[in-house]
């Protein structure tokens, strides 16, 4: 597939987590007329959605039933090229997990419980092309 990313003024943010509370929290925190927010409840749906509407930023959980976040990150990176910013949100705070996330193509790795302000800043920076 071709990886032409439409550079709209509103960055498209894809939130991927199997926990609906986390999705709702992240959505609520990021709610802004400047973002287009989409959500997926597992890795398969995330990949399907990302192929349909190429996201600018993906917030990606690691431990999910089915495809885990590392697999999804690798596939997204392969499908979407280097422009898409992938931020992993994981309950695993081992350095090795972080390394694996970065190897899988993540631009940033946050551990849960995450700090909403840090996430907001990271997304804002990603939207400005600085992450």
């Amino acid at each position, binding site marked *: 597939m071709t990886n032409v990313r439409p550079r709209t003024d509103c960055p498209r943010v894809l939130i991927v987590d199997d926990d609906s*509370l986390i999705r709702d*929290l992240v959505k*609520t925190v*990021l709610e802004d007329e400047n973002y287009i927010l989409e959500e997926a409840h597992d890795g398969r749906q995330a990949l399907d959605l990302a192929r349909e509407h190429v996201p600018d930023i993906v917030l990606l959980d690691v431990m999910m039933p089915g495809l885990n976040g590392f697999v999804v990150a690798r596939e997204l990176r392969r499908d979407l090229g280097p422009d898409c910013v992938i931020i992993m949100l994981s309950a695993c705070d081992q350095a090795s997990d972080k390394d694996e996330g970065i190897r899988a193509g993540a631009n940033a790795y946050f551990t849960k419980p995450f700090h909403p302000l840090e996430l907001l800043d990271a997304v804002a920076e990603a939207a400005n092309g600085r992450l």
Partner: protein
Amino acid sequence: MAGSDRLRVVGPEDLPAPETEPEEWRLRDQLLNFAKDLNEVYRRERTRARELEAALEELQDSYLATVRTLAAVVEAKDSRTRAHLDRAHLYAVALARRIAPEMADDPGLRYGSLLHDIGKIGVPEGILGKQGPLTREEWEIVKTHPLIGGQICAPVKFLQKAIPLIEGHHERWDGAGYPRGLKGEDIPLQARVFAIVDAFDAMTADRPYRTPMTFEMAVNEIVRASGTQFDPAVVQAFSEMCAGISSDSPFVTELRRLKH
């Protein structure tokens, strides 16, 4: 109403319990409220930051406009022109960037280079515009202009940064300058930088009574005065900068625009 328990209408509470307890749902709603408020606070903060940034920029513009107005007061009295000030400032910033990038962005350098001769408003016009050599007394009066400039700027907080350059721009590396006769690194760096670009522009500028020196001749003159009039390290940076300037660089284009 003892029998009502058996006869009551079936309602939503009779449906199988959801996966999460009601307690947990309240907690979830509470969390979402926190998230909503956080979102709102973050937006307000960002709006404020943008407003502050715009206000700061406007303030800095007014500072510069004020400084330019002050500088225009000296132009009215002295033969050197606005173009000289703009060129000197351009050279000073370029040279400062080579030596220490943070100095190039220091408002002290910018304001100082525009205001370096502000103290000349304290020197009688008869002396400033005099044809022929000055008497010893007249010369002593001219030599007070850096300190008068410092006194003019001292009460204004944002101009205080310019004082080291204003007071020091006629000092010499060998200590033979004025007004204080400071020597070597006792002379503020901004003043050591500006002294070179000021002399350079004076040599290359058009004057009614003489033809200007060529770029190369003026650079040679500066190099010749290294260690006597000027800081050798700054001269070194200056000559490197001049050697690296090609005639079609934006810097030279800007200089041409300023010549008139």
